[in-house]
Each structure stands twice: as structure tokens, then as C-alpha cells.
């Protein structure tokens, strides 16, 4: 996938639901950008806007994550398998500050802090939804 090769960040990826949905996700709404859908290859970024940053506060975990607004395209690569997926920033998240210093390792190399939230479509393209978190590298 040719959606980015310049290293942007790395950390943990989790997944979330958005848009029209079933179950407890039904109340999720279209997200901070208004376009978020669980079935699309999309992501939530902790610094999608100033207001978003104020909620996620990755700086409290030592992550000075750069601003990438709605519509930014990124490649997310699962560090353990090399599988990757291209996503569009469509929401604000994850709430990095609530899980400071949480880490996910792959063969001894660890990624710390939740830095990106993927839709089920994007997350399942590179890992199993039942895994919850993945160590990832992010490119743009």
C-alpha cells in the first residue's frame, strides 16, 4: 500500500467503534470529524485538533504527538507480523492519558502508550479484534 513511508510515530493501537452501529456502539456518533464509520478504514488520532488534544493529553504520558487533522492519511503497520493498513483520520482518540506507560511488546521490543485508535475494519485488517491492543509503527 502506497500511503506513506515516512516514519511518523509508534506505540499501541487499540480499536473503537463509530458511526451508525449496533450494541453499545449505537450511541457513538460520527466522531470528531463527523465522517467516522466502523466499516471504513479509518482511525482516531490523539491530536486531531486542539480541542481533541485537551481531551486525550498524550503529553501527560510524554508523547508529543504532532497535529494531524481530519482527512490525514497514515499507514499503520503491525510490528509483530508486518501487516499494514492505510487509514484516514476521522475522529479524536484514544484517551492516551488514561493508560500512561502501558506497553505492548513484540519479541522483546516494546511499544508504549496508546497513540492510535482504529476502526474494526482497519484493526481487523492487521490483527484480531479479540487481541485488543497491537504494537504498531505509523507512517505518512
Amino acid at each position, binding site marked *: 500500500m502506497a500511503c506513506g513511508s515516512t516514519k511518523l510515530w*509508534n506505540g499501541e493501537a487499540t480499536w473503537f467503534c463509530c458511526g451508525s452501529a*449496533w450494541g*453499545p456502539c449505537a*450511541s457513538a456518533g460520527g466522531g470528531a470529524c463527523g465522517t467516522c464509520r466502523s*466499516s471504513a478504514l479509518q482511525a482516531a488520532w490523539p491530536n486531531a485538533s486542539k480541542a481533541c488534544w485537551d481531551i486525550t493529553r498524550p503529553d501527560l504520558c510524554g508523547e508529543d504527538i504532532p497535529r494531524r487533522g481530519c482527512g490525514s492519511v497514515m499507514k499503520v503497520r503491525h510490528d509483530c507480523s*508486518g501487516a499494514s493498513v492505510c487509514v484516514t483520520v476521522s475522529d479524536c482518540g484514544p484517551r492516551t492519558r488514561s493508560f500512561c*506507560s502501558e506497553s505492548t511488546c513484540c*519479541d*522483546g521490543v516494546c511499544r508504549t502508550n496508546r497513540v492510535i485508535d482504529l476502526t474494526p475494519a482497519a484493526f*481487523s485488517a492487521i490483527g484480531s479484534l479479540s487481541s485488543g491492543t497491537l504494537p504498531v509503527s505509523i507512517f505518512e
Partner: protein
Amino acid sequence: MSAYRTGDPLDRRRFLTTAALHGATVVGATALGAVDADAAFAAPIRPLDPAVAESAFAEGRITAINDDVLAVAGSYGDHSRVRVTGATSVWKARATTAADIETGDGLYARGVPLPDGTLAADAVWVNIVNLHATIRGIEKTRLHLAHGQHEIVGNLMAETTSAAYGTASPTADLSRLTIGQSAQVLGAWRPSDGSVDLVRVAVAPGAGRRR
């Protein structure tokens, strides 16, 4: 290969166990731990088989089950048909089989689109939810969770529900959960009453202290 073909699942498992234990042993390499993380991960990625079509995804509520095909009504009025075979993994609070799937269940499916318009599923996750919640109450059989403005009951399941504390791996020990903790809750939603069967409750490192 008679044991492999037998109808008895125990025989089949025994056969597969023997096969698995004859497999090659791969041990994690410590050398990686000593080098720069980024350099270690920068090794070229083996390309996926180009002959295999890019995977597709389906989402929605199951409206009907016809043999091995699930009719799925998407959340945006779209419809899809998901084919579940013996090679499809089925998750519904645990690794299970297609027999556990019911009409009305929610689903995420990943697979390969077939020429007949169905999605040949590699994996389906039934009713799976992954919520950021706050623990508001703890009882013997359930947790009370606040998810945004909604209250959700989380059912504890013996031998299935695990807790992950910070960076430690999941454990059956739930005694360190406390009221007020922020938690990432992975579980299976029950369409009948809206509660969630808890599979994994992950709390932040050092959780329990006030933010």
C-alpha cells in the same frame, strides 16, 4: 490420516496435538532486545501473497442464517452475505463455532469477496465490543460500568473473564479491580438485555489513583 478424518472431535484433537508437538520449535531471539527498537522493526516486510485478493470487511446485525451463509444488515442500510466455513474462526466471547451464532447478533467479519457476491469469512467476531469505561461497582457476578453517559452491566464469566493490570499479561485474578478505575473493556454484547459478557478488563498502570 484416519484419526484426522474421524468424526470424533477428541480423536481429531489428539491427532492435531501430536502433529503440533512434532512441529519446528521457534524461540524468541534475545538479540533483538539489545538493539535499537526501530532498527529491529525496520527489516523488510515479506509481501503478502499477491494472488490473494485484498481482504474485505462486513459489519452489521445478522437478520437470517441459511446453512453456512449469514445475511447481515449493515448499519448504513447496506446488506451483505457472509459465508462461514470450517476454516472460519468464530469469536463469541471465546473461540467457538458457527453453531453459536444467532439471528439478531451483531457482527464484524473479515474475509475474501467471492464472485457470487458473498464474503468468504476468514474470521468473524460476534457481538464483540471494546469500550473505554469506568468501573462504578463490583459484585460477585458482575461489574457496573459507566461508558460515556451510559451505564452498562458487565457479566463476569467463570474461567473466561480476565483482567490485565498495566503491562502485566491477562490473569484470572480480578481482585485488584477497584471502583473508580478507568478500564478498557473487551467483551461480547448480549442483544437480549444490553449487558456485556466480560472477556478482558484492562486497567491502566497505576490505576486506582485519581487522575
